[in-house]
């Protein structure tokens, strides 16, 4: 968030990429794209491209991480070195570690972890091309991959960000808006209950704008939820 900028990111209610303030970028989801993984998903969200793969439930390694009464979710978010304009050094950095950690915890709320004591469910998210909003896109892909793997879940978790550019609250920031905007609020919810399982915020929002941003992100999540279900329906819905 650069905060104040002279850059005109929204003009007459139209954003640089031609979207309206409350419009998502185009999202395409395909379930079951990988052979080895128990469940997988390929997702394109605008120009973001992400693969997610799930293994498990299986014996938890290292052993000291096992929980006697439930499974743990081991999520791992990584960005390919070629996914950004400047080459990113391979491996986990502090940003990826933080995202992996909060995503793991979000999924432990919806996955029926109590069914699998001492087990681990491994969720791997690989960002191969990044244009802002990858943590939400990766989580969304991971939800579909978990469903594809047949892991018992209470619900899937759609995730979507809202933010503020040129003092206007908008849905799903693109690259320029992320770099030069005034606020970014990634949100993940459980659609069936409305509970919030992931929330981050950086930038500057007035109390009113925060309310508006929460409403917008929530409606974005609900739109996304439909796309996720349609993708699974396409793979597993059978004859209509």
């Amino acid at each position, binding site marked *: 968030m650069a905060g104040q900028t002279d850059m005109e990111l929204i003009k007459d209610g139209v954003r640089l990429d031609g979207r309206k303030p409350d419009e998502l970028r185009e999202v395409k989801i395909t379930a079951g794209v990988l*052979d*080895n993984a128990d469940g997988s998903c390929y997702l394109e969200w605008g120009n973001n*491209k992400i693969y997610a*793969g799930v293994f498990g439930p299986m014996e938890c390694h290292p052993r000291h991480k096992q929980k006697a009464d439930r499974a743990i979710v081991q999520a791992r978010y990584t960005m390919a070195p*070629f996914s950004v*304009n400047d080459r990113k050094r*391979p491996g986990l950095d502090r940003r990826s570690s933080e995202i992996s950690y909060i995503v793991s915890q979000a999924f432990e709320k919806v996955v029926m972890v109590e069914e699998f004591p001492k087990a681990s469910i491994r969720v791997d998210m690989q960002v191969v091309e990044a244009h802002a909003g990858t943590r939400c896109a990766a989580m969304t892909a991971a939800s579909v991959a978990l469903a594809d793997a047949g892991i018992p879940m209470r619900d899937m978790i759609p995730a979507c960000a809202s933010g503020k550019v040129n003092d206007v609250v908008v849905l799903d920031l693109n690259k320029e808006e992320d770099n030069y905007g005034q606020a970014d609020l990634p949100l993940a919810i459980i659609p069936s209950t409305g509970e919030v399982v992931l929330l981050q915020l950086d930038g500057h929002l007035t109390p009113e704008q925060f309310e508006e941003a929460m409403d917008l992100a929530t409606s974005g999540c609900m739109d996304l939820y439909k796309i996720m279900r349609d993708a699974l329906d396409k793979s597993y819905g059978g004859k209509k």
Partner: protein
Amino acid sequence: MSSDSVSNLMKGHMESLAAEGKRADGRGINEFREVKIETGMINTAEGSSMVHLGKTKVLCGIKLLIGTPYGDSPGSGTMTTSTELAPLADQSFDPGPPREASIELARVVDRGIRESRMIDFDALCIERGERVWMVYIDLHILDNGGNLFDCCTLAAAAALSNAKIPNVQHGIADEDVDLPVTCWPISCTFGRLGDTVILDPTSDEEAVMSARLTVAHDEDGNIRAAQKGMNGAFTDAEVREAVKTARKSDNVLREALKGI
């Protein structure tokens, strides 16, 4: 799925099939699986490719950055190859820093590309002794169906042939030009199943084979790199025969590469 423990029944079955010149998936012993190459799908990379070799899937991205040359070659660009065995590709791939297997893979691919002089390194010099292009080849394994060596070499070659030098972005020149590629190295990997040598092993075959041999040729039939792996051994005759077979068998990969 590859696994450290495979039943003796499976091992015996694969070995006896191989002895009759057959494979579990119906191929002959010197036959590649179906290969499919796509290029240019990653917009943030200077070059990219996705190669499917049977069930193995590898995504390769090329990045070009400006850096200083090595002291012993002030007029040449540099190249670095890395592999990411993503945990989603195989249950046995652990998250964490690269293991020996991953490093061996990256180095074998690196040698095939480097020693064939596929990239014209001298043409990557911007200012002698000061500034050169550094080529980063990053290989992302998305699905491990066996024979990562050949799939990765093919993905690297395809992505390099598709790469542009980002002159405009770095203010070097007015237009982006193709990365100078001089030849096409192709590797062929063999496995020893019982007493039979097979080409292009699947992950099931890798789990029971005792030794691995990778041979890279250029298009003129000259050998450019080789590597023997795993704790078994090949006879002298088997090695010589494998090198000859590689020269004949790599044509299907070459055709696939030309087709992109």
